[in-house]
């Protein structure tokens, strides 16, 4: 075996250029496949995370009819004892009661269908923490004009401010990133921009008759903190629900789709508004993870706690079929791209194999003539091919690992039109990579299988090789 490895290794470097070209093709295949897949899965993770942890939860207790018919008639009685029991289940991190319904929101001449989400302000802090999503800074045209008139601001900074005009930010870092100021500009103007663009917002208190409005909806309705929105909808058992609600805060939801249509109020306010005293529509639960095993076990355990037989536990996948389908569709497109990449690379490897067999036919004939068994020769050639592949494969994995690591912690934040386009699709304009998981190893396994498939050709050729013909070649 040692002898075979030596021969295979030396054969590998007989044609250095060819080996490097082939190994490079494997390297790029692995690198691009891993990075591409990592970005894809990272984006899905982000989307799911945004949606789940800030809205639906990993699991939800609902009335069994609520998902198909999201009417308040399918709400259920809620008590604090159920809430406490949930925490006895392993993997439960947080939980929050919700009342979720629809209403028409109106302000001035603007009207829009919205989701009304009622929360327990304290419990929700530990669940989706809407307080952290309060808009801290708002770049308006009025602000830009004010800064322009002051004459203190350089034209280039005003131009950058114009590019983010209308945007709201719940963090300084995102505003800083979007503005893309130079070091000097940041030092000179950032503190003024932050001061001038500061938004006055507050989280809902308990009790509170006011509401928080999502940023894009607030822009559409042209409302700000202190303004009032009119909500009209249908309450419990067909009762009409209408009311005036002062706006306490504007929140920036990470999922652009939700950001377009969300109004948050407290549960007591919603119970009065919808006349659903003592009832909620869902109890959302966050878990330590969303692996199939954790979801299944947690769902089963929580189901056993439910005394109300009209309720059941749904997973985030049951609750978001559109998101799941969207991800599946996009994932299949990604897989098709990868398949094409693999296909091209396979023929690169196969080309090398063909050349090698043509060039070394005589040599193989000599080796068999002087007494080497064909199976040993095949073993040497397969070893040679595997070594060639492994060089590219390991290099590809090693090169992609720091890349994945870096962009996992420092995701690409998409700016400009591309970012807007993604948000219009309802996706977060952030591209993180996914943490190392099966996808990382599977790309390597697939490429390795490709190499093994390519070795079938020399194996077959050697099996059929006739010494006399090989010696004449």
């Amino acid at each position, binding site marked *: 075996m040692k*002898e075979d490895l030596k*021969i295979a290794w*030396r*054969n590998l470097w*007989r044609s250095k250029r060819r080996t490097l070209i082939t190994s490079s093709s494997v390297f790029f295949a692995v690198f691009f496949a891993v990075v591409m897949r990592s970005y894809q899965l990272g984006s899905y993770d982000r989307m799911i995370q945004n949606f789940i942890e800030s809205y639906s939860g990993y699991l939800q207790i609902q009335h069994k009819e609520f998902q198909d018919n999201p009417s308040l008639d399918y709400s259920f009685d809620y008590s604090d004892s159920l809430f406490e029991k949930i925490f006895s289940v392993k993997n439960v991190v947080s939980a929050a009661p919700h009342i979720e319904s629809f209403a028409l929101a109106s302000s001035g001449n603007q009207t829009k269908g919205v989701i009304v989400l009622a929360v327990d302000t304290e419990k929700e802090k530990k669940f989706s923490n809407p307080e952290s999503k309060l808009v801290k800074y708002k770049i308006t045209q009025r602000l830009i004009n004010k800064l322009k008139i002051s004459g203190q601001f350089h034209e280039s900074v005003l131009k950058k401010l114009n590019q983010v005009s209308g945007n709201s930010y719940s963090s300084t870092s995102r505003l800083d990133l979007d503005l893309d100021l130079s070091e000097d500009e940041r030092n000179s103007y950032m503190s003024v921009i932050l001061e001038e663009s500061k938004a006055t917002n507050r989280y809902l208190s308990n009790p509170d008759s006011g509401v928080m409005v999502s940023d894009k909806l607030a822009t559409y309705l042209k409302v700000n903190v202190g303004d009032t929105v009119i909500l009209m909808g249908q309450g419990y058992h067909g009762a009409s629900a209408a009311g005036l609600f002062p706006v306490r805060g504007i929140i920036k939801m990470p999922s652009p789709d939700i950001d377009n249509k969300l109004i948050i109020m407290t549960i007591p306010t919603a119970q009065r508004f919808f006349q659903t005293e003592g009832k909620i529509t869902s109890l959302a639960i966050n878990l330590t993870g969303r692996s199939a095993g954790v979801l299944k076990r947690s769902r089963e355990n929580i189901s056993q706690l439910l005394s109300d037989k009209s309720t059941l536990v749904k997973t985030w996948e049951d609750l978001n079929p559109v998101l799941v389908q969207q991800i599946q569709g996009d994932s299949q497109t990604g897989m098709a791209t990868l398949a094409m990449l693999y296909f091209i690379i396979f023929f690169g490897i196969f080309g090398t194999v063909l050349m090698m067999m043509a060039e070394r036919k*005589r*040599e193989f004939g*000599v*080796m*068999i*003539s*002087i*007494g*080497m*068994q*064909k199976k*040993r020769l095949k073993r040497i050639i397969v070893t040679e091919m595997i070594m060639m592949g492994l060089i590219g494969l390991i290099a590809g994995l090693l090169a992609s690992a720091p890349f994945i690591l870096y962009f996992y912690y420092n995701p690409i934040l998409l700016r400009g039109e591309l970012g807007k386009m993604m948000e219009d699709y309802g996706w977060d304009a952030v591209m993180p990579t996914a943490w190392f998981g099966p996808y990382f190893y599977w790309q390597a396994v697939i490429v390795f299988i490709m190499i093994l498939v390519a070795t079938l050709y020399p194996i077959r050729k050697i099996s059929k090789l006739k*010494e*006399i013909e090989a*010696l004449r070649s």
Partner: protein
Amino acid sequence: MKVIDIKEVHKVYDEEEIAVKAVDGVTLSFDEAEFVAIVGPSGSGKTTLLNLIGGLDMPTEGEIVIAGTNLSTLKPSGLIDFRLNNIGFVFQAYNLVPVLTAKENVEFIMSLQKWSKHDRELRSDELLKAVGLLERKNSRPGKLSGGQQQRVAVARALASRPKFVLADEPTANLDSKSAATLLEIMEKLNHGEKITFIFSTHDPRVVKMAHRVITLEDGKVVSDDVRE
């Protein structure tokens, strides 16, 4: 003692549906330690006969018995093992393994026979010394001249202590000085190792040194002269 026994061997090739008789009813036998040259014009069947004796090709008719074994009774893998243990090959184009050094090329055959490392080293040194290349034992074929490569090929052919060595035009690609050196070495090894050498050749120097000269024409043996 008889090493090779060839009985009424025919080899017919079908080339574009025309049957070509490359070897036509050859009956020969070779004894231990013979130094034989097979001569004849191009196309007379020299190389085909050597290939048949070496088990690289199978006769259309007749049988070839080597050390009591009829080659046609062996399975392909059995035939490869048989060649490994009984036959040494020297090719016109040297055909050394390019990625192995001279020493490793010689040891390669012995490693296929599963000799111990120590025995391999002893034997390869002995043979490389015999062919005058001990000081070049760590050179790869690419760093050796044609004559030197052919000498390594001879050492490789003898490494497994075969019953006989088949050499197909071994001097064809060599200059006269290298050819003379090679022939001297082979004759010395023929005496020393008591191994039969069978050459196919056009080279008059080989013919001159041979103890027996077999002439082929149109696949038939036309003369078989044994010299004293």
